């Protein structure tokens, strides 16, 4: 049955048909027709109003990462649209399925430098999987169908639809939402080549010291059960990237933690000494490989990935397999021979015994940030979703939280976007009402999108933010300390023109002042604000926050110059780790 509908009505109907139940965004001139339809359809789609479009994009991202569904955000033309770009780029680098809808000026004005005009298709070309400018209402249903299909299939990613106001306010007489897509240029290959999969099985049989290197692709294709089965059948240790934390049981004897710059000693030694790497849905990011020329020098490398361009991009691969992780593993598992534990497994457990030790708060009076993360992990319910900001807070979260399920962690891995965590956590909460959602934050990052506490309060999204406040942009400060002779240029968040950097020169602490005062800031947004600087009160503060029925901001005043260890200096081989008294 066909219906006469406006472009905006078509859009909302199509979103409903694509299963969208929540979307995020911000209104503006050219999207009023769309908001008018949203107003009349609030029983079909919940619209969450962010306080900044970047927040809306990260919310859609958090929604998508925690559910596996496509996240949707909406912004007006010009500045609204350009404000989405950081969120779109974040989703692009981490292969998050997203559809971003932007308003555009009237078609007849495009190219005239009209009010609030920006060339969004041009601007987002290299940060989207694909993008569209809708130049004719007749193509709108097809474009929406294609956008969702492209966003969630193959290697997922963001797709942008730029919608001129005359299209959303215009009418189509014979609207039908298509059932399927027909794109001759887009046919992702999900079925790995059997001969290649056989070669992976043979490589397993020949290897004495294999390692499975699991990436975000495991999560995206839902291949965690298969991963566990493969690892257990072959007794192969598994390292999981930042984006894959949670896909493998953390307490499993075969799990060796995260690889790379802030990875575990065990993972980095194992990758360096192994004779086979089976990479599944990972992309050999430079934060994982360190010096590429010295990465896994003796290893044969098999790479299973749905994106052919990810294979042999960084490291020459011996056995490429282009295909979906889940399907490929299902085919591979019966082909591999079961293996007993050997000397390699023994070596791995020796390393783990040596290096895998819980963090100690010690008897000092200053809170250690790592310990706070460990306590959060112990005190939060086991089905808690965790978002992080970017920097030290993110790495400590990755290292000291115990990951219990695949989609537990939302973190900006590829782009490293400060300000990601809070809005992402709100997106997660909107998608998962009733679940505990926390954001592990630094005092720097949280200030990049702290306006979203307003969204948290009015939309009743009771996200708990735990700020590890060291009064520094800690990760950059750490690099300055280790590699730039402690010249803390623009990393102290309290530095004033007249402070004379006494702390750098003398190591003396400066007067305590709160900029901002996070407790007051929280209260300004009607959130509960808590501050804790006493190690003895960490647990009770966390419990108080978790018990509160509403959004909470907890500030832990932590050791100022705590560092993230181990650390592989940029460009060094990954077995050359700095270790320190964290």
């Amino acid at each position, binding site marked *: 049955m066909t219906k006469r509908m406006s472009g905006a009505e078509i859009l909302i109907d199509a979103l409903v048909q694509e299963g969208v139940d929540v979307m995020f965004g911000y209104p503006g001139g050219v999207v009023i027709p769309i908001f008018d339809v949203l107003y009349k359809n609030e029983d079909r789609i919940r619209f969450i109003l962010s306080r900044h479009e970047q927040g809306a994009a990260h919310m859609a991202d958090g929604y998508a990462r925690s559910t596996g569904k496509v996240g949707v955000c909406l912004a007006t033309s010009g500045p609204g649209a350009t404000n989405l770009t950081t969120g779109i780029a974040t989703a692009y680098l981490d292969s998050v399925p997203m559809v971003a809808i932007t308003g555009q000026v009237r078609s007849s004005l495009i190219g005239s430098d009209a009010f609030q005009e920006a060339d969004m*298709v*041009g601007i987002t*070309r*290299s940060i989207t*999987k*694909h993008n569209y*400018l809708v*130049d004719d209402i007749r193509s709108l249903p097809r474009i929406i169908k294609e956008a969702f299909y*492209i966003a969630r299939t193959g290697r997922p990613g963001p797709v942008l639809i730029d919608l001129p106001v005359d299209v959303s306010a215009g009418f189509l007489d014979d609207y039908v939402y298509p059932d399927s897509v027909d*794109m*001759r*240029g*887009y046919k992702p290959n999900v079925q790995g080549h059997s001969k290649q999969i056989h070669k992976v099985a043979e490589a397993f049989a020949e290897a004495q010291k294999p390692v499975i290197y699991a990436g975000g692709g495991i999560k995206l294709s839902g291949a965690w059960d298969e991963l566990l089965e493969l690892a257990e059948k072959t007794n192969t240790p598994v390292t999981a990237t930042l984006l894959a934390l949670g896909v493998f049981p953390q307490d499993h004897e075969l799990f060796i933690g995260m690889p790379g710059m802030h990875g575990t000693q065990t993972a980095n030694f194992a990758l360096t000494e192994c004779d086979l790497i089976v990479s599944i849905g990972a992309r050999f990011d430079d934060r994982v490989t360190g010096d590429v020329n010295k990465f896994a020098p003796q290893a044969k490398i098999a790479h299973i990935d749905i*994106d*052919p*361009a990810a294979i*042999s*991009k960084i490291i*020459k691969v011996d056995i490429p397999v282009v295909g979906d992780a889940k399907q490929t593993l299902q085919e591979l598992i019966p082909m591999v021979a079961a293996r007993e534990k050997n000397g390699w497994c023994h070596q791995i457990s020796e390393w783990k015994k040596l290096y895998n030790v819980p963090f100690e708060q010690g008897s000092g009076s200053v809170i250690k940030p790592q310990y706070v993360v460990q306590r959060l992990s112990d005190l939060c319910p086991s089905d808690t979703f965790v978002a992080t900001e970017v920097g030290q807070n993110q790495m400590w979260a990755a290292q000291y939280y115990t990951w219990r399920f695949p989609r537990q962690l939302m973190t900006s891995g590829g782009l490293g976007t400060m300000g990601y965590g809070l809005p992402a956590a709100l997106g997660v909460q909107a998608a998962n009402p009733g679940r505990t959602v926390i954001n592990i934050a630094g005092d720097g990052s949280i200030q990049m999108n702290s306006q979203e506490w307003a969204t948290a309060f009015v939309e009743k999204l009771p996200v708990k933010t735990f700020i590890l406040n060291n009064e520094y942009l800690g990760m950059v400060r750490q690099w300055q300390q280790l590699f730039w002779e402690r010249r803390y240029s623009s990393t102290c968040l309290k530095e004033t023109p007249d402070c004379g950097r006494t702390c750098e020169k003398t190591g003396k602490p400066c007067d305590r002042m709160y900029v901002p005062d996070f407790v007051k800031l929280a209260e300004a947004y009607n959130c509960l604000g808590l501050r804790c600087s006493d190690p003895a009160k960490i647990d009770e503060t966390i419990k108080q926050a978790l018990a509160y029925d509403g959004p909470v901001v907890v500030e832990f005043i932590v050791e100022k110059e705590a560092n993230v260890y181990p650390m592989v200096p940029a460009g060094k081989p990954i077995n050359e780790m700095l270790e320190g008294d964290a």
Partner: protein
Amino acid sequence: MKKHIFSVLVENHFGVLARVANLFSARGYNISSLTVGETEDPSISRMTIVAVGDDSILEQIAKQLNKLIDVIKVRDITHRQHVERELVLMKINAPKATRADIIQAVDVFKGTIVSMTRDELGVELSGDSDKMDAFIEYIRPFGIKEMVRSGKIVMAR
């Protein structure tokens, strides 16, 4: 560094050239030449891209082109049997003293004189790139006032 010829079938709609050009600039690949035109199917255009790089870059170029949604097919036809043509138009400085030599060269290279003034000849020449280069080299000492090269178009045999 090697030079490779990619024959790329793309959707014939607005913005596709920008996507391809953007891919090369965003990823730092070098294009030596790019031509684009409609095929026998008006909904499809063919781009002929000559790119320079080492083996891994050339492999990435093909893969990244393939990832573009508007790209239908990518073929590296460098090592396949193919016919390759380029067109050059040029204005050559041609006073009386050298004019006969130039006309003779155009004749030998099977070019065409397309315009003529008292001291200038306009010449059109097509063929493979080696022939173009040889002709240009020969003519250069006479004085090339303006030159336009089309870039390669290539068809697999």
